[in-house]
């Protein structure tokens, strides 16, 4: 974490980015809602809240937590890690966590500044609690997707482009900027089938109250399902990749 | 008329004085206190056309600052500078057309493409007439043995091959003056010799004036007749290698390790140059006393544990000068 603290401009750009986008999205929704019929379940203040909270979540979610894996595969130092008597995946999880916690801390100042620009709704305490649980599950989904992407580096090192492509798809179909309930129906159906929706859309829709308490168990269950599925896939991929390293010597 | 004329060159770098910490950063917003660093302080010399000069000095002496002023990168704080009749910093491009530069640690060749492509681009940049270009290419290819790897991408070349390419690149436009900054650094013995050979040939056959900056004094010994030594931004010696050797050649240094910390250590006929704990350096004139006699004289009065003699090769002469300053009297009296 000390490593991250020295990146002053990283802090600056992270917060500045959030604020610039908070402003932008506020103006966009204002303009859109001014001349068009608003969705009944998502009035203007709700959608602005959605976008703002999404951007704050993005501070934590948009980090490449397991980048160290790719880096080590790139320079071959992964081999030495395998010789250590530790669980290598756990090591990468812990390594990325520092950066994530640091960025999580950034949420507070970002939120304070954001409140100068917009007004956001605050749900009741129980709803907030469920939101946080859902956020955490969404974070885990994101973590495994990120991990799987970095695992591709076991087979081919050129993953930059792939990562960016997945990032954009995630942003779009995760409902980060545009609530999935705004999507045309056929796209919504696709989006809700993908794991990305669990990352942003589910927690956010809980926050703004579009998902009502009676559906909580159902949506949290879907998230948990995705976490499990991705975790299983991840362990298979990891084992295959590790075998490749050990057999081929990096 | 001299091709390079430098008179009382001076370069001062001014930077904001900054106190450490947050208090200092805030204070810096309100006050304007500066720190002046004098990199070059009254340097004068002149070079005739066709000279090959070694420009030597310890790190931080002001070598690269001088070269940057000569090449037009830096503007002098004061002083007069003329290179081939042009003032470098006011007519940067005209000056650039007359010079070639080889930075030993950085190549000007294009990494991804065959060597020949870099030459083509440079030909366009320096506007070299086609036939002159072909003539030069042929000549350099011969001396530097470039044909073997003209078609190889530069990134695949060995350091020695790349340096040879850089040399050809610097000479492509027939510059009147060539600045060589650490041209043999990192090269193996054979490659160094090849480069030195090339520099000597180019200087002799084309009359190209060469300024050579290097830490490898064997380069200087092999190539130049004249050496300019600078330290702390000033010239401390400007003359021939011969003279330097003569002056210092008469003097050698005896390095003695004392067995005990004799506080009144003194030896007749020698000069104590330095003393660090029990290690003493004695300078003596070998025409007055032989090393053997001196050692005997020392051991007559003192117990010693070790002794060695330092010969006056250029490297050690220069080292001595760095350590002691320059003595121009043959009796060893400091100037």
């Amino acid at each position, binding site marked *: 974490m000390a490593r991250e603290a020295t990146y002053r401009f990283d802090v600056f750009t992270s917060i500045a980015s959030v604020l610039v986008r908070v402003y*932008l999205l506020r103006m966009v929704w204002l303009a859109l809602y001014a001349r*068009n019929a608003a969705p009944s379940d998502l009035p203007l203040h709700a959608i602005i809240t959605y976008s703002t909270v999404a951007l704050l979540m993005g501070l934590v979610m948009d980090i490449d937590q397991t980048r160290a894996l790719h880096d080590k595969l790139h320079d071959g130092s992964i081999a030495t890690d395998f010789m250590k008597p530790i669980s290598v995946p756990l090591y990468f999880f812990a390594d990325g966590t520092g950066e994530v916690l640091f960025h999580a801390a950034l949420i507070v100042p970002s939120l304070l500044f954001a409140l100068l620009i917009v007004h956001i709704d605050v749900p009741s305490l129980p709803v907030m609690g469920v939101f946080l649980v859902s956020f955490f599950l969404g974070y885990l989904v994101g973590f495994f997707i990120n991990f799987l992407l970095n695992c591709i580096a076991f087979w081919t090192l050129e993953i930059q482009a792939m990562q960016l492509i997945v990032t954009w798809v995630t942003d779009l179909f995760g409902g980060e900027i545009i609530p999935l309930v705004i999507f045309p129906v056929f796209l919504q159906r696709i989006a809700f089938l993908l794991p990305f929706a669990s990352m942003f859309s589910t927690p956010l829709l809980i926050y703004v109250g579009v998902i009502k308490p009676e559906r909580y168990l159902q949506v949290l269950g879907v998230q948990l399902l995705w976490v499990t599925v991705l975790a299983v896939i991840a362990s298979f991929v990891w084992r295959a990749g590790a075998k490749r390293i050990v057999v081929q010597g990096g | 008329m001299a091709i390079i004329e430098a008179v009382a060159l001076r370069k001062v770098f001014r930077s904001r004085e900054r106190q450490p910490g947050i208090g200092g950063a805030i204070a810096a917003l309100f006050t304007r206190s500066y720190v002046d660093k004098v990199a070059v302080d009254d340097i004068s010399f002149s070079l005739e056309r066709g000279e090959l000069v070694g420009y030597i000095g310890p790190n931080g002496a002001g070598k690269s600052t001088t070269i940057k002023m000569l090449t037009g990168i830096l503007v002098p704080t004061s002083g007069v500078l003329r290179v081939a009749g042009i003032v470098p910093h006011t007519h940067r491009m005209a000056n650039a057309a007359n010079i070639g530069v080889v930075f030993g640690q950085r190549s000007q060749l294009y990494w991804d493409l065959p060597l020949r492509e870099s030459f083509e681009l440079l030909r366009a940049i*320096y506007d070299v007439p086609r036939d002159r270009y072909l003539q030069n290419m042929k000549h350099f290819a011969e001396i530097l043995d470039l044909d073997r790897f003209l078609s190889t991408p530069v990134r695949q070349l060995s350091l020695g091959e790349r340096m040879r390419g850089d040399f050809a690149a610097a000479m492509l436009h027939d510059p009147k003056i060539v600045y060589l900054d650490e041209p043999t650094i990192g090269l193996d013995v054979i490659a160094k010799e090849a480069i030195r050979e090339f520099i000597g040939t180019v200087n002799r056959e084309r009359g190209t004036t060469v300024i050579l900056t290097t830490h490898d004094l064997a380069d200087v010994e092999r190539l130049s007749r004249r050496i300019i030594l600078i330290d702390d931004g000033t010239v401390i010696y400007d003359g021939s290698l011969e003279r330097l050797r003569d002056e210092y050649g008469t003097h050698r240094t005896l390095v003695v390790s004392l067995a005990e910390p004799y506080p009144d250590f003194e030896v007749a006929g020698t000069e104590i140059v330095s003393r660090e704990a029990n290690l003493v350096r004695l300078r003596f004139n070998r025409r007055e006393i032989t090393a053997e006699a001196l050692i005997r004289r020392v051991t007559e009065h003192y117990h010693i544990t070790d002794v060695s003699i330092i010969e006056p090769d250029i490297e050690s002469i220069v080292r001595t000068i760095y350590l002691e300053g320059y003595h121009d009297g043959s009796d060893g009296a400091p100037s």
Partner: protein
Amino acid sequence: MMSVYRQYWRINILTTLEYRENFLIWLGFTLVYHGSAIAALWIVLTRFPSMNGWTFRDMAFLYGLWMLAHALHNTLFSTVGDIPDHIRDGEFDRLLVRPLDTLFQAIATPGQVFPDELILGLITFAAATWYSHVQVDALFIVFIPLIVIGGALIDLAFNLVISTVAFWFVRVDALRWIVIQLEQEFTRYPVSIYSQGVRLLLTFVVPFAFMNYFPASFFLHKAHEASALPPAVGLLTPAIGIIAVAAAYLFWRLGLNRYSGVGH
């Protein structure tokens, strides 16, 4: 200079061919980047058909115009963004030691130049022009190329200004990043949706509004809610581009003077 520029492009092409496997990757990258932006716009405008009077068709033209100008800049001038690195690692001195203008050399530094973004830009713009039903008359045909070039020059001006700042503050990444955000995200929507301060900023200080909004408003006959300026102001983009680059160049010379230690 022209022969050097020709040689520079020759080497660019050779270098790009040398690394042609990268081409598909970059193409995919560009496709997804612009594709997801357009997809997002489409999704939103399907649900909310009018944004301050602009429909998806209008926005497509707005985006296409920006994309083409930006792609042109990236193809011709992206090397200007590398100047801070050259200053930091000492390569910049090499430019000073050659008998050519340093900015010209910085622009003409060979490397990989993939035409994918430009080609995609042309295709997108053509498609957007057709799709938006904008009137393609003589005025359009004469002015649009000039406007695209003007837009590329505005981009260049800002690229140059940011790179020049490196003469004072070696790390300019944060600054560059913010300006890019302003450009890429704010030009996506009609400037009229922003508050007064931002509108003024994007018109007079950081004139990204001239890259696509004003010209698009003019050709699409949109009412000018963004400012009190007459619609024809959209035709001024080439002039704005030239002025912006001229101003940036003056700043660049200031930076060069500082680098050479003029004045002390």
